[in-house]
């Protein structure tokens, strides 16, 4: 069973997109932990650690990814969560994609991504026990 944490770090005002993703992953047979709005990087990583998820799906609309993602990835490394697959979705400008990948994000999904693509990507990368 694939376990995913859908997290919304930062000060985004709504979580419609995150909920759409959460439901799509559930409908694809995955277990999705959802923690709601306004999470700090510390909360996100603590939840990922405690819930022992395979995938951390971050949704960031506010443009704060250049500060939030490095901090999250730093905490992921500090906690030796080497087998965690980190995905990033939301509004991420083209020029920011490569820096995010360099930080250890496995893939960036822009607005309007077909949820089936996200499902397929996760299935291709997470080994199911």
């Amino acid at each position: 069973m694939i376990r995913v944490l859908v997290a919304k770090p930062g000060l985004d005002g709504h979580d419609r997109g995150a909920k759409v993703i959460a439901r799509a992953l559930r409908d694809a047979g995955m277990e999705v932990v959802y923690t709601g709005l306004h999470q700090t990087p510390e909360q996100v990583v603590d939840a990922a650690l405690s819930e022992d998820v395979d995938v951390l799906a971050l949704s960031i609309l506010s443009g704060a990814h250049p500060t939030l993602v490095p901090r999250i990835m730093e905490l992921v490394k500090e906690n030796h969560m080497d087998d965690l697959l980190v995905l990033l979705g939301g509004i991420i400008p083209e020029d920011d994609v490569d820096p995010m990948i360099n930080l250890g994000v496995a893939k960036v999904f822009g607005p309007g991504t077909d949820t089936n693509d996200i499902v397929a990507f996760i299935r291709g990368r997470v080994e199911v026990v």
Partner: protein
Amino acid sequence: MKDWDDIAQGILKGQKRAIARGLTWIEQGRNDGKQLAQKLFPHAGNAQVIGITGAPGVGKSTLVNALTLQLRSQGLRVGILAVDPSSPFSGGAILGDRIRMQDSVMDAGVYMRSFASRGHLGGLSRATFGALTVLDAAGFDKILVETVGAGQSEVEIMQLAHTTMVVLAPGMGDDIQAIKAGILEIGQVFVVNKADRDGVDHTVRSIRSMLALASEHPAWMPPILKTVAEDGRGMKELADALENHWQHLTDKGLLERFRWGQTEHLIEQAMADIGDRLVGRARSGQEWSHWVAEVGTGTREAEHVAEELWRQEWRED
């Protein structure tokens, strides 16, 4: 994380990551998860396991959050397990209890984990039993287990708790449903949450009259408390009521009996595992199809086949 022995050591030291990985193994029903639970069982038996059940939306998760803050202020360590139903269609689940627990779970003295019910009969209570063993061995003083409703598997889970707390909210629909579902029979502490709303006293009265109907002189008289989980009102009283029940179990020698029953349960599980293993092996053997055919036509008894499987097992050792 290498093998189950490393994980077991980490759990005994109370390390979050080891606890988390151990729970995953147990949830997956893996063999090393079973070994882990057995190894840790002798280290468990100190925590009070508190079940929290009630209809969807009555405020169980919010209550767990507020109660955890209260217990932390008393210096107690708290483990939390929240079980949500899996989708019967996809097998997936959305586990949302953590949303309401954000104030309490970041604390180093708190560990919270969401479980999906995964729809397998018996498997859920087994996974829960293993998970409680892990949290207990990890040194948590109080373990809170949240489940929805009063289905068969929820009742099974509540049997793993020392103290079951039934949560209701004002509104006629809720109490009638709870009474119908037999939920009142399993509670040792009753909570009417959302006491900031109208109709609280009516709900309290209906619970009280149901309890009076159930037993005239119970050894333990379940208290009925009013709470407002959202702002923490009533949490001190709730923590006291839970402590009183714990004291009651201790004083009456019921705790030892509980532990004895759990240990028997562990042996029963091991027995069932051996049975599963033998049947699994027999299925791929040559005689299996003969046996099945013979049992089907009545020329051989099913019990005879079972005995034969045991005998083969002994011969091999």
